[in-house]
């Protein structure tokens, strides 16, 4: 299980709970690691700060990244990820709170793979995942079909 991690970068606890709930509801069995701001996300990814000693060879399969974050914002996190060979290839799905065109355009410019409008419309998310080739998303067996 350890390798099948989804990293959720989201500062709003409500959104975190709802996103995790939606993922669970759709039977996604991956471990979901949650970080609350951009700095924490970078520490997580590069094994620094409170995550010092984390095995950075074990990177998440996908990062769900909110754009508006305290301390270091989502776009900067994205930029830093794309600039580092360890995180360059991790798929990033941007979470936006509105269709603020500018945000979406800049996140694609910085190498985002897809975007999903909050609250996570799960069918849209699964579509995006399929397009990204995220076939590894581990879906739990649905108990009764």
């Amino acid at each position: 299980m350890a390798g099948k991690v989804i990293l959720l970068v989201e500062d709003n606890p409500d959104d975190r709970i709802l996103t995790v709930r939606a993922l669970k509801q759709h039977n996604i069995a991956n471990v979901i690691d949650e970080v609350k701001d951009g700095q924490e996300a970078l520490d997580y990814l590069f094994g620094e700060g409170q995550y010092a000693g984390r095995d950075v060879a074990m990177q998440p399969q996908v990062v769900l990244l909110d754009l508006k974050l305290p301390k270091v914002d989502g776009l900067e996190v994205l930029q830093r990820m794309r600039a580092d060979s360890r995180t360059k290839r991790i798929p990033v799905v941007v979470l936006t709170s509105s269709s603020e065109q500018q945000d979406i355009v800049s996140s694609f410019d910085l190498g985002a793979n897809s975007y999903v409008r909050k609250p996570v419309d799960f069918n849209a998310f699964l579509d995006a995942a399929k397009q990204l080739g995220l076939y590894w998303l581990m879906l739990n067996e649905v108990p009764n079909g």
Partner: protein
Amino acid sequence: MRKWLLQSFFRQVSLILVAFSVLSISGYAYQNYVDLKHQWRSAINIQILHLTGFAALMAANDLRYEKYFDLWEKLRKVQNQAAEEEKGALFLIKDIVVLDNSGNVVGSSDPVRHPLLRRYDGQIPQSSGEMQIAGSGRVKTAAPIIFGGERIGSLVMAFDIAPFGRFLRQHLRDFAVYLILMTLATLLFGLALARWITRPLGSVRSVLPMLGSGQAAIPSLSLRQDEYGLLGRAIEFADRRIHESEEQIRMHRDHLEELVKQRTRALEAANKELEAFSYAVSHDLRAPLRAIDGFSLALVEDYGDKLDDAAKGYLQRVRGGAQKMGRLIDDMLQLSRVTRAELHYAAVDLSAMAEQIVHDLRAQDPHREVQVSIAPGLTVSGDAGLLGILLQNILGNAWKFTRDAREAHIEFDSRLQDGEQVFLVRDNGAGFDMRYVSKLFGAFQRLHTEDEFPGTGIGLATVQRVINRHGGRIWAEGKVEEGACFYFVLK
């Protein structure tokens, strides 16, 4: 000549002055000449008659006593004496002849011309001094010779008045010289006068181009005490006034420019703020809504079995409210984005755009049967993004408000009106009351209730802004239960 005159006031004045003085001087001179001629002529007349009468008196005695020699002697003396005196006289005695009552010459100053005791061969003027002109420059007079109350003969005198003619001609020459001199003098005087009259005009003219400079000074006028002085001072005053007001206008304009710059800066700042604000709105305002909606849903889904139908209904309403507010925020954001967005002009195929929008509407509402006719090839120059929003709202409205129509029909077309291409979207839906047409395009203004037709009332306000950004116009017509038609023009 006429043009030459009309071009210069100086010439006009000079001409009038010169013509007037030449005419009056020559008139005066002529009058003088005529008077002189008559005066002298009558003076000569009287002299001649007196002379004749006097000679007749003198001859009476000699004639009565037949002293013909004495008579001749006297006549000759008179003539000679007259001839001696008459250097510079106006007339000369030509000859003197004495006749008896039967018309024979009995005495003569010049017996060669008029031999004695012959009939007088010339004409005799009527007696008692009548005067007769014989030939050129000759005048004859006659007087009766009386002795003792009885006429005993007549005396005829002939005069040469050529000197008088010469005298007149001399005078005429003098007058001509005088006239020429006077004409020259008046010419000079007239020109000087005309110059004197028109010179102030020249200084006025020379200062006119400077008017408004604040430098106009015409001391040659303004220092005078007369009406020209008033004029000069008035012009100088006007110059200063114009200068001052121009200065003021310039100041105001500079100030205005400064003000515009200030306002622009303030506006730019406000715009930035607004941008930041709407970003915050879009992000932060939506977060709590998501929580309300999401957790209500979670409640229903996860604890549905523990809730009764009323509780579920309430939760449904909570979600409805949150979603509605979410839409409202989105609409408001779109409204402000339309105002801020940079315009990128390009040729836009409105027909294709409308087709796509209707296609999407059909996909969202598959059970609706709406007949849509879109005229092909309606293109316009404008911002594709904004025009998309415009058509989406107008067609979306037409779609929404034809919900209850029996055979819903929507039409998109254009027509030429007063040289402008007017686009129109017509439907046969719920329509509206023309009394409220002015409210149509205001933000949050609706002519239908939420229960009748859902909506926030921002769509047409957004449309209006798109139109404004393109410098166009939009207006609408409608009738309750019959339909509505929206017209718009883009620049």
